[in-house]
Structure formats: structure tokens, C-alpha cells
């Protein structure tokens, strides 16, 4: 069997992280971080991460800010946003600038996420 894709999920809600990890444990190798800065740390420590999914609203830096920073250092990773909000200007701009591939809505739809990731890999 093929090696599982490594994925980083950033969210300030530990519960979300835990559930995400459990639900995708069979499909992805899921790493988690509770903030943008933590996420950057994880990225520098793990070079095998191919996919980053981040929450939008987090203390410290927002999801987009975090992705902007990460993209500088790791331009090959595919970035996604998973948010409780409807689409807004910031997300729309990020989409337009190809900063992120797609944005998912909370409550997340496992299938949609999985399919999208597979598509962009």
C-alpha cells in the first residue's frame, strides 16, 4: 500500500483537531497545530507535509496570514481553508491569488475534503 499523505491541520479548537485526526487517520497522516505560529513550527520540522488545512479565525494570526507566511517558505504545499464563516472578501482574494486551492465550510464534509485533496495532489 502506498505511503499515506502527510497533512497539517491548524485550528485553535483542540476538539476539532482531535476529531479531524481520528476521522482521517486511515487516509492521511495528520499533524496538528493549535495556532499559525505552531503550524509554521510543525512545517519546518516535518518536510513531508504536502497538504495544509487551516481554520480562518484564530488568535494571533488568521488562517490566511498563516498561509501567506507558510507559502513563502513552502510554496509546494497545497493550502486549504476550513472555516465556520461564509465566504468573505479575504477568502475570495486568496482564491483569486491562488494562495489557496479551495475553502471548506464547517461543519466539514469529510468526503468533500478528501476528494479535493486527492484532486490537487
Amino acid at each position, binding site marked *: 500500500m502506498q505511503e499515506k499523505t502527510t497533512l497539517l491541520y491548524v485550528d485553535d*479548537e483542540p476538539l476539532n483537531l482531535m*476529531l*479531524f485526526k481520528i476521522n482521517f487517520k486511515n487516509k492521511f497522516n495528520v499533524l496538528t497545530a493549535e495556532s499559525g505560529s505552531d503550524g509554521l513550527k510543525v512545517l519546518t520540522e516535518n518536510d513531508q507535509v504536502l497538504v495544509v488545512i487551516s481554520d480562518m*479565525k484564530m488568535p494571533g494570526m488568521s488562517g490566511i496570514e498563516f498561509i501567506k507566511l507558510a507559502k513563502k517558505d513552502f510554496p509546494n504545499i497545497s493550502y486549504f481553508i476550513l*472555516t*465556520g*464563516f*461564509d465566504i468573505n472578501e479575504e477568502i475570495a482574494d486568496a482564491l483569486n491569488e491562488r494562495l489557496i486551492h479551495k475553502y471548506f465550510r464547517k*461543519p466539514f464534509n469529510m468526503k468533500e475534503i478528501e476528494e479535493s485533496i486527492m484532486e490537487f495532489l
Partner: protein
Amino acid sequence: MKEKIELPKVLDYYSKSDYSTQQKARFIFYLCIAAIVGVLLLTFSSVYVQLNSSEYNKLFSPVVFSEIVLLMVFGLCIFLLIKGKYSVSTHLFMITAMACVWIVLWVHQGNNIARLDTVILIIALINLTPLFITKYKITIVFYILANLLMLIVFVFFTKDQLNLSNPTAIDFIMDTSIAIIFSGVVGYNIFRINKQSLEKVEYDYKERKKAEEALKQSELLRRNVFDSSQIPIVVMNSNTFEYIDINPAAVKAYGFSSIKASLGKTPIDVSAPVQYDGTPSSQKAVSYIDKALKDGSVTFEWLHQRPNGNFWDAEVHLLSFESNNETLLQFSLVDITERKKVERDLKESEEKYRTLMENMNDIVMMVDNNDKVLYVNKRFSEILGYSESEIIGQIGYEILTSPKDQKVIVDANNQRIKNIISQYEITLKAKNGNKLDFLVSGAPVRNSEGKIIGSIGNMIDITERKQAERALKESEVKFKELYEKSGDAILIIENGKFVECNKAAIEILEYNSKEDVLNIRPSQISPEFQIDGRNSVEKADEMMKIALKNGTHRFEWLHSKNNGEIFPAEVLLTAISNDADKKIIHAVVRDITDRKQAEKELEKHQNHLELLVKERTEELATSNEELLSTNEDLHNQREELEAVLLNLQNAQKQLVQAEKMASLGVLASGVAHEINNPLNFIKGGIFGLEQYFDENLKEHKNEVAPLIEGVNVGIERAANIVTSLNHYSRQDNSNVSECDIHSIIDNSLIMLRNQIVNNIDIKKDYTDKTYSLLANEGKLHQAMLNILSNAVQAIDDKGTINIETTISKNNIAIFISDTGCGITAENMPKILDPFFTTKEAGQGKGLGLSITYNIIKEHNGSIKIDSKVGHGTTVKITLPLNETKK
């Protein structure tokens, strides 16, 4: 002790003498008999001796003689004794005996000793003296002295004969004397002691007798009082309650035949079976008897019944007393049947009067001297509303409304004491606060001694009468005022002459006083001829006749004032009475000088005016044209202004709504995010669980699936609401494109197809004009769908939905009207509020119209909803058109 001495019959005389006398008498009697028998024996023996003795051989006469004398003397003694001469008899006996002794001493010729010892007999006799003496004990002393003297004399003369020496003689005398004196003293004292003892006994006896007598007398008296008393008295055994003594008055009261028949009876035999209070007599009697035994006495009233069945009342005074260590009860009775009857009658009559008072239509009230209410009848409570307990004991003045009335009452009360009957009116306050008027008449209440103890009053409710009076008075005053203040002269004509007039009449006619007008005829205040040349007297009579005949008559008349000035007047005559002897007419005279003058003036002016009018009409016609055009301008301006105002009002309304929505948007986006996160937990959790079941517990899958499905549906629904909320926060106009509103509407209808049943008729009236509308097609679609969905849902059973579009200037208007249930006025202001819905829970979220509003606003359009309950709703959406492409 022998109670009675059996006296020999011959001594009957002493049968009534005292006890000792009787005994003495009997003793003397037997002594005398014994003496006679003794002397008889002596006589026979001496006779026998004398006859047979050799010494005498014949009768020695001195001896026999003296013996016979002795017999005779003793016989005399018995005789005297029998005759009651006790003292004489005894003394005779004594003296005789002593004399005999002394004689024997003197004549005795024997030896000395035989001679001298005879003296002893004297001593013996002296010892008898206490028996003989009845009264005078001093006689003993005489006997002693006499015997001593005889002794001395005897010794003196016989000393020699007896050969006695002097000392012997003296010695004899001394001895004998001492014996005699001693015997005498002893006898004396025995007599004295006997006598005194006797007297003492006799005294004591008499005293006792007296006391006994007195006791007997008092007992008798008491008995007499008891028997003759008119008060029935009965003595009763305290244990058996039997009557043991009863006086004739009681026998009579009880109706028994005799005292004997009454004894042994008990109270039950004389009582009614039950007393007035219903207690059985036997029970009640025992309680009273117990009380009397305990307290000594008790007084009570008792209902009795005679053997013949008649009832009678008595006051019973029962008392207990001790007699011979036995407790007895005595009671006296006072017949109070009459009193009781009077009491009953009184009570009955009182009851009657009370009933009378209670049922009276007027109020009856009684107060004491301190004005405290003692009694009120039922009517009082009914009229004034105070309950009996609320008024009795209160001061009656407290329900007066005016303090003035108190004085009226006090004065009236004082008058009544002097028997001056008066009536007065007062106003009282009823409990509910109403003021009621009363006509009060009253009288003092006297007690049996004639002292005034209060007063009783009869009050008649005259509130209505008073009100009527007041109303009458008011109307009278009003009419009087009307009459007096009338500007027209008002006069009353009786049989052709004025009998009354008002002030105006005097003023108009310029008289000084009313008296000047009265008693004159109408023609006298008129010129000689009227305006038509007729004589005033004649014409006035005619006018009055017409008035009397027709009831009223109005005409013009010339009057003359006091100073002769003539003025025109309008006269209205009204017949009041048309009796043959009392024809009364009411006349109103109005001075029409001014009117007449004005009429003339008017006529003058009229001609002038007609000319003027003609001129002016022409002028007006021209100016009118000018005005008309101005008017139109003004009208237009006003319409514009009104429209502006309406727009402003709408703008304000919309501004308020927009503000509301803006703040809602901020809120909604916050809420959306915060809800989505927990929803994410749930969804993630349930997804995880589902997978877990798939991998590990496949056999449970079927049971768990519906549960998981339920959670997923819930998440879906919640997520949809949150998504809807996001519409409030979105302000972007991206995705704007050229839209065909008609196809959007048609598409929406297609989407709603499953909801549109056959009996809903959809009529479309789309505009033909071309237009360019730039909008977000998806959102517009959503807005139309919401509105149409509402319209469909408003129609319950059958109805029509009209869809019309119009283009005007720069706008497109879409009208969507339904014939559904409509929106109530109450709900109207709330329909745009999010979450407001009249649908059942779960049927709708209440966000449709709210979101629609937001979408229209985003497109700078407007939405207007008109609705009438039961008739339907019309929604008008106006959207701006793309001007550049026009």
C-alpha cells in the same frame, strides 16, 4: 316520790292545799284519832282499875272527867281539822297535850322519878311543833317559854314535896330547860329549813311553769301565724321531698281538698310537667332544692299545675333550716300568674309592635339621651345600607351630612319635651356615600316614671321628592330668569287687563314701575289708531279674540310709550286659559323699530347693490381665469411636496430597517461562526462514530444508522440556518450579471411546482418593454422564490396568484399578489424581522422575507407589502434598471 297524797275523804278541804300541808293535815288527823283511841283505852282501863281496885272501888270522877274532857278536846281537834282550821286544831291539840302533862305532873302522887320523868313528854311534844305550825314559827318560842315557866314554877312549888335540894332543883331545871330549848330550837330550824326548801322548790316550779307557759304561748302564736298566713307556706322533708306541714293558704293555692290530703305530696304533684324553658319540672326542682341546701335559700319562678289541670305561676322562696338535728326545707309561694300573664301580654304586644316597626315602610330609629342609637328597624338597613351592628351603639349624628342638621334635631327634641310636635328634614349619608333626604317626626321616649330616656323617630325617605323639589325650584328659577331677562316684553293679560309683566316690558314702554303697567288695557299702551287706520281698542279686542280662539296669534302692532312716542312691535299672543270668567293671554311684545328701519335701509341699498354686482361680476370673470391657472400650479406643487414627504417617510422607514439589518448582519456572522464550530464537533464526532461502527461493530450498524441519520439531519438543518444567516453579513456585489426577471420568476415557479396544487391559479402579466437589469441572479432567484413560496403557502385551499411586471422610468416593478389569508395588522411591522414566522415549528425558519429584504436592499431596490386579512397580500418589488445601457 309520791305524786299525790291519798287524803282521807274527810280532809277534802285540803285537797287543794300544798303538798306539805296535806301531809301535815293527814298526820294530825291520824294523830288525833290515835290520841282519841289512846285516851279511850286509858279511860276504859282507868275505869276498870277504879272499879276493880280496892283502893277506889268506885269511879274516881276527876280522872274520868278529865279523860272525857280530853276525848272531847281531841274530837274538837278533828272537827276543826276537817273544817280547815288547821292552826287552831293543831295548837288546841298541843296546848291540851301540854296542859295534860303539866296537870299530870302537878297531881301525880307517885315517887319522884316517876313524877319528874313525865317532863320528857313535854320535850316530845315540843319536837312535834314543826308539824303543827304552818305560818308563824315564832309560836315555837312561846311554847318553849311557857313550858320553861311551868317547869320553874313546878319545881319551885314541888321542891319540898319532892325532897329536892336547891342545887338539885336548879340542876333539874337547867337540864330540862336545856332539853326543852334544844328541842325547840331544833324544831324551829327544821320548820324553817323545811319551809324555805319548800318555798324554793315552789318558786323554781313556778318559774319553770311560767317559762313553759310562755313557750307554749309563743308556739301557739307561731302556729297561728303559720295557719292564718295568707302566704302559702309548706315545710318539706329534704330527703323525700314530701310535704310534712302545710298551711291552709298553701292548700288553697295548690287546690287540694284539705291539709290532710296535702301532706305527703311532693313538688311534682303540684308542678306542671315542664317549665317554661322546656326543662322537666322534676329535674329543675331537684336543682333548686340542691341550691337551697347548699346556699341556704333560693328564689325562683315556678309553673304549677292544680289537680284540676289549671296552670298557675308562683314565685317560690325556698330555704333550708335545721330542726331537731334534721334538715328541713320550707318554702313560701307568691302567686304571680297575673304578673306572668301581664308579662306575656306585654311581650306579645311588644312583639307585635316590633313586627309592625320592622315591616314599616319608613325608618324607625330610637336613640338614648346621649344620642347613641338603641334601635333601628330593617328599613333603616335597607335604605341606608348600614347593617344593624354597624349603627347600634353609634352616635346617630355621625351619619349626618351637615352639622347644621344636628342643631335642627336638638331643637326639635327640646320642643318635643314641651309636647310641641314638629317635623324636620335632614340629610343622611348612606353607606355607599349617597346623600338621602328624610322627613323626620319623632317623640321623646319616657320610662315608667315619666323620665325621658331617649327619643324615637320616624323617618320617611323624601330624597326623590326633594330632588323633584330642587329640580322644580331650579327650573322655576330658570324660567323666572328667562322671563325676567328676556329682551322682549312679556305680559299676562287677564280678562283684557295686564296682571303681570317682566322688566323688559317696563323698559320698552318706559314706565317707572310694574304697578304703572298693571291693571291697564293693551289699548291704553297703544296710539288711538293702528297703521291700517283701525281703532286700537277695537282691533286689540279682535286680536285677543283670535288668540283665544286659535291658541296663538302673531301680528304687528303700534304701541305708544309712556311719553307718547309710538313704536312698531311684533306681538305674539298665546291663550293660556279661555274660561268664561278667566281669559288669560300671554303676550310677547318685541320692539321692531330697528328691524323696520333696517328693512327700509335694506331696500335702499338693494337697488344700489344690483348695479354694483353687475360691475363686479364682469371684473370677477376675468380674474377668475387668472386664478384658475395659478391654482393648478399650486396643486401640482402640493402634490410634489406630498410625494417628497411620503418619500422622506419611506426613506426614514427604510433607513431604520436597514440599520436594523446592518447590526443584525454583524451579529449573524458572529453567531454563524460560533455555532459552526460546535456543529463541526458534532459532525466530526458522528462521522467518527459511523466509521467506527463500520469497521468494528458492523452487526450494530442497522440499529445505529437511524440514530446517526437523525443527528446528521439535525446538523444539516442547523448548518442551513447558519448559512442563511450569512446572507445578512454579505455585502458584495460580485457575480453581477444581466438578469431576465421573468425567467427568474418562471424558474422559481418551476421549483415550487410540487407545492402549487391544481386549485391555485397563476396569472402572469409581464411587461413587453425591453430593459436591462444588473443583478446577482442567484440572490434575485432566492428573493423571488421566497416571495412566491409565501404566496403559495398563504393560499389554504383555492386561490389565485397574480404576477405583474411594469417598467417605469428607471425602475422595474414586480407585483406578486395572492388571494390568501393575508397578514394581520398586528403582525405587519414584524414580518421583515428574522425568525418571525406564523408557521408551525419546523415548517419555516422565519428568515425568508428578511433575507429577501436584504437582497433587494443590496440591489438598491425597495419592497412594499400590502395585506388585508382574508383578502390577500400584494408584494411590490422595485429594482433600479441599468441606465447606462438604456
